[in-house]
């Protein structure tokens, strides 16, 4: 090798040709570089600002943060599950041959996507949950969030289903698969590939959107952080902790879907 040092640097800084993996050393070193840049930038910003940090007073309220985080975790998990099932049902309804079902699903999706979540939460809580005598505000809040997210998930799934070519459907039909078997063995496994990235984005949004449930008085992370901030006047500390709390929930989702994406990857 004539230029060893130059070559090493190139291997670390530049991505290998398509299909090859980035080496673990390059991953580690680049990760370190990015981390350092963020750390230096943060330190610089903190020095420039006239903030004085007061972790002491909010540390008394650590239980509130923890309880809020747990509530957000539970609300998000439940909504994730309910909205996935709802989204799937809505997506299937949209490709149904029974027209009233199809139109109902389309109308639902348009109304939900066209109105702010804030308004939906109020309407659901004060009108629908009230009429249904649904008294538990956590259940009501989780349902409101699920109904909202389901509309978006429905569109994501519908897009995935429609991305499957006619030749694949013909093939499935020709080998004698029933409609259900075609969905199970041909459409869903193939659609998953295009569904996963936007679905991950929607799940992350869902977790963050759960913060809006504070308006109906759910003691989730945002509500509790706001409360702590007003008790202690430590706004920055509280909101910083709040940000970290959400990141702890959203990062695993992103990492999990990336891993799933690799698993379902195949060339076409």
């Amino acid at each position, binding site marked *: 090798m004539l230029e060893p040092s130059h070559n090493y640097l190139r291997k670390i800084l530049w991505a290998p040709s398509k299909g090859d993996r980035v080496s673990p050393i390059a991953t580690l070193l680049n990760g370190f570089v990015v981390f350092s840049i963020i750390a230096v930038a943060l330190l610089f910003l903190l020095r420039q600002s006239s903030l004085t940090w007061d972790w002491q007073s909010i540390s008394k309220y650590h239980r509130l943060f923890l309880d809020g985080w747990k509530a957000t975790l539970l609300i998000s998990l439940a909504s994730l599950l309910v909205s996935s099932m709802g989204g799937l049902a809505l997506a299937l309804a949209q490709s149904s041959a029974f027209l009233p079902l199809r139109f109902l699903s389309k109308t639902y999706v348009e109304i939900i996507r066209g109105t702010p979540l804030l308004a939906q939460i109020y309407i659901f809580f004060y009108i629908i949950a009230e009429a249904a005598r649904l008294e538990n505000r956590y259940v009501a809040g989780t349902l409101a969030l699920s109904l909202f997210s389901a509309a978006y998930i429905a569109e994501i799934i519908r897009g995935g289903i429609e991305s499957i*070519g006619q030749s694949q459907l013909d093939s499935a*039909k020709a080998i004698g698969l029933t409609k259900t078997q075609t969905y199970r063995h041909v459409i869903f496994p193939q659609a998953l590939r295009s569904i996963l990235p936007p679905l991950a984005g929607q799940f992350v949004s869902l977790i963050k959107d759960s913060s809006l449930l504070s308006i109906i008085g759910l003691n989730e992370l945002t509500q509790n952080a706001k409360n702590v901030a007003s008790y202690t006047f430590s706004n920055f500390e509280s909101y910083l902790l709040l940000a970290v709390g959400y990141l702890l929930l959203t990062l695993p989702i992103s990492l999990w879907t990336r891993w799933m994406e690799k698993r379902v990857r*195949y060339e076409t």
Partner: protein
Amino acid sequence: MKLEIEHLLKILGSHRALDSLSLTVENTRSFVLLGPSGGGKSTLLRVLAGLEKPDSGSVRINNVSLPDSELGLLLYRRKIGVVFQGFNLFPHLTAFRNITLPLEVVHGLPPAEASEIARQLLVRFQLEKHAHQKPAQLSGGQRQRIAIARAIAPRPNLVLLDEPTSALDPEMTAEVLQMIEELRDDGRDIILVTHELGFARQVADTIALVSQGTIAEIGPPKLIFDGPQSPITQSYLAKTLRY
């Protein structure tokens, strides 16, 4: 195979893809459909495969009418094998799984039995080293041979092939045609849509020339190639054989 078609009509959009098509074929193992593109060959094959319902007319195969109901058609499709021009295989499954999936899911075979059938077919057609590759990793010819193996795995009595070599280069075409010839020699009935005239002449017992949604001419290969009566056949052969 005995095939009787009467006044078959299939309208696609505003176009009469099949325009009162009638034919009778008897004592035929391999039946080849020739004709210009857009003439209705593929539509006819799709009707025979139970993939499209005709708007009117009747089809009888070995004295049994093609079913009308969705369920009847589903059961009918399970008894025959179909190969298309391209993109037959499921890209998310390996070649092996492409063959075993219908055996297990559609025909209810236990996985071990399905695997054994798939293995034997792959060995027979010298495809065993591609068993665990996905379609994107295979050549067009290999893909089409796997597709044929999948179609014959449930041992159908009738195999329909819709231009199986149209998307292939000459070398791949040859390997696929050889496989089709073996099917015929196995004693399976085949109906083939193709543009490979030499092959048609060699394997066909009966050839029909389909044009403008109807049969221009039908008969044994010798008659079609050596003494075509219909001007449509004459012009089709003249154009196709010129180069």
